[in-house]
């Protein structure tokens, strides 16, 4: 990855999404929830965003595309698919990107499908909105059935005519993925796509997303609080904590390079078969909550290495949108 030329002036040609110094604030009250986040997502790569509940990971990612009803971008620059989505405090050209270039897989498959519309119709509707193919046409139907087969729904012809409540959670999430894929997007945003599912189904859904991404050269942003799941499936992981970007690292490099203290602490919390319950560590203290700002490290109160500078200095920003970045004020973790 270091071989790729990265200039600070233009956008690297292989980035599908570039986020520069973006801050997100609430529409009501204007409180800044996430600030100073910069990273780039490559074409065809899987990009993970991890964080505890309330770290702002979902809020941030959804706000980038105006999918969050109560937030707005308050600063920074967003470039998607070589088009500027946001700069100089103004949003541009969002209309034609939603519904054809971006696919969205929400958290809970039990409530993210329209309960009174047949599954097939929901897919043909999406195809119609993206490309204008009449939803009742033979071509559109065939395409929808093919998509249901692609995401592994048994008997796609029958499923086409059924309602969402006739499917299990895992099957519903597959249908949601089929709907997202139907618009042939360049970027798929999966917001904790597996939290509502059991462990076995989780694995299969993630595998499906990874496999579809590789096959279609589709970029995916995978938001999750499950670090282990992300480590096994994505190329880069960004770690958010209390609205601050803590760490970005390449999963292939894990073990070779040092990590941000917070990321290390997160890895120690992962349960595994070799650990008993008492072996699993937890990070002492409570999360600071989103909206910490950029003065001082939000993790300082819980960090084992904390020094005075951690509470007063301005947090470093990932201005170069590097593949490896650590915001640690003590310089722990790799910064390129």
């Amino acid at each position, binding site marked *: 990855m270091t071989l790729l030329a990265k200039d600070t002036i233009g956008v690297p040609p292989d980035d599908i999404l570039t986020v520069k110094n973006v801050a997100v604030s609430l529409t009501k009250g204007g409180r800044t929830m996430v600030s100073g986040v910069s990273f780039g997502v490559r074409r065809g790569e899987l990009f993970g965003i991890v964080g505890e509940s309330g770290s702002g990971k979902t809020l941030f990612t959804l706000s980038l*595309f105006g*999918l969050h*009803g109560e937030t707005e971008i308050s600063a920074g620059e967003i470039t998607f698919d070589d088009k500027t989505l946001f700069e100089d405090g103004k949003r541009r050209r969002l*209309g034609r990107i*939603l*519904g*054809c270039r*971006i*696919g*969205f897989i*929400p*958290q*809970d498959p039990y*409530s*993210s*499908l*329209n*309960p*009174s*519309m047949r599954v097939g119709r929901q897919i043909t*509707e*999406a195809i119609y*909105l*993206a490309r204008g193919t009449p939803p009742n046409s033979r071509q559109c139907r065939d395409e929808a059935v093919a998509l249901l087969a692609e995401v592994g729904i048994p008997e796609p012809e029958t499923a086409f005519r059924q*309602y969402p*409540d006739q499917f299990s959670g895992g099957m519903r999430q597959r249908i*949601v993925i089929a*709907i997202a894929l139907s*618009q042939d997007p360049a970027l798929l*945003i999966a917001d904790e796509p597996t939290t509502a599912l059991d462990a076995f189904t989780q694995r299969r859904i993630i595998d499906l997303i990874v496999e579809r991404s590789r096959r279609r050269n589709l970029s995916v942003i995978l938001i999750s609080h499950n670090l282990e799941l992300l480590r096994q499936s994505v190329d880069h992981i960004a770690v958010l904590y209390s609205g601050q970007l803590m760490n970005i690292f390449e999963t292939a490099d894990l073990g070779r390079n040092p990590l941000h203290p917070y990321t290390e602490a997160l890895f120690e919390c992962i349960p595994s078969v070799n650990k008993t319950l008492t072996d699993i560590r937890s990070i002492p203290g409570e999360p600071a909550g989103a909206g910490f700002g950029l003065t001082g490290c939000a993790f300082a109160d819980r960090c084992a290495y904390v020094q005075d500078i951690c509470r007063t200095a301005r947090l470093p920003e990932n201005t170069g949108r590097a593949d490896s970045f650590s915001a640690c004020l003590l310089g722990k973790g790799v910064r390129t």
Partner: protein
Amino acid sequence: MTARAEILGYPKNAVEKMALIIAAVIMLIAIFGGFLAPHDPLLIDFRSKLEAPSWEHLMGKDGSGRDVLSRLLTGAQLTILSTFAVIAVVLVIGCSIGILSTFLGGWADNLLMRIADIWLGFPPLILALGFAAALGASLEAAIWALIFSWWPNYARLSRMITADILSQKYIASASALGVPTWRKVVFYIIPNAFDVLIIQLTLDISAVMLAISGLSFIGVGAQIPAPEWGAMIADGRNFVNTAWWVVAYPGLAIFVTALSFNIIGDMLRRELDPTLRRNT
């Protein structure tokens, strides 16, 4: 959710089955009652006034010698069709205002809903009474008066349902798919509001029917000789001691119709209301 096709599977006991059958029969009478009437419902024959029920006149004759059964069958049309007219118009107006209000949001939403609140502060029958009296006593006036006083119920209800649906995740998903607002209303909000609306609607059928009959009874609705059920009771109330059939049959008709629709409403509520529905 495939509710619309399954209504025949809903009745859980004999009462609900009876209610469905009676409601269906009454609807048929409302449409074809005029053809079933054995005599002319408006033919006055003072020689046979207040004649007791017989095989020739199953429900007897009223104070002007008109056949009560024929009037009842023909009158079903007036009472029930005007009820449905009120419900239909109120549904369209109320829901349009409710949905619009939700989408407008802010002060416009507040304004519309406070107007509806103020409206609801008046007893609906009194409001309708005043309005009907102002329009002049006729069945049309009663219909307009009820529409006028009933819309806030649906505006409030649809406002509530729409706000609830808009907060659902599938609306966020729809936004991500690029679904324009009008398609959201047609394909997402109306179909999903249907289940809750149909319950209110069925329960309101009996309420509106009682209100129309009530207005006619008081004298601001349908006028004699029109065979509207409420007007028939009003016409026969002087003879209630000597000729019970003049009052009892239209009263029974109102009672049975209102009861059937109420039972159906309760049944639909049990089957469709998301807060009462057992987990599927």
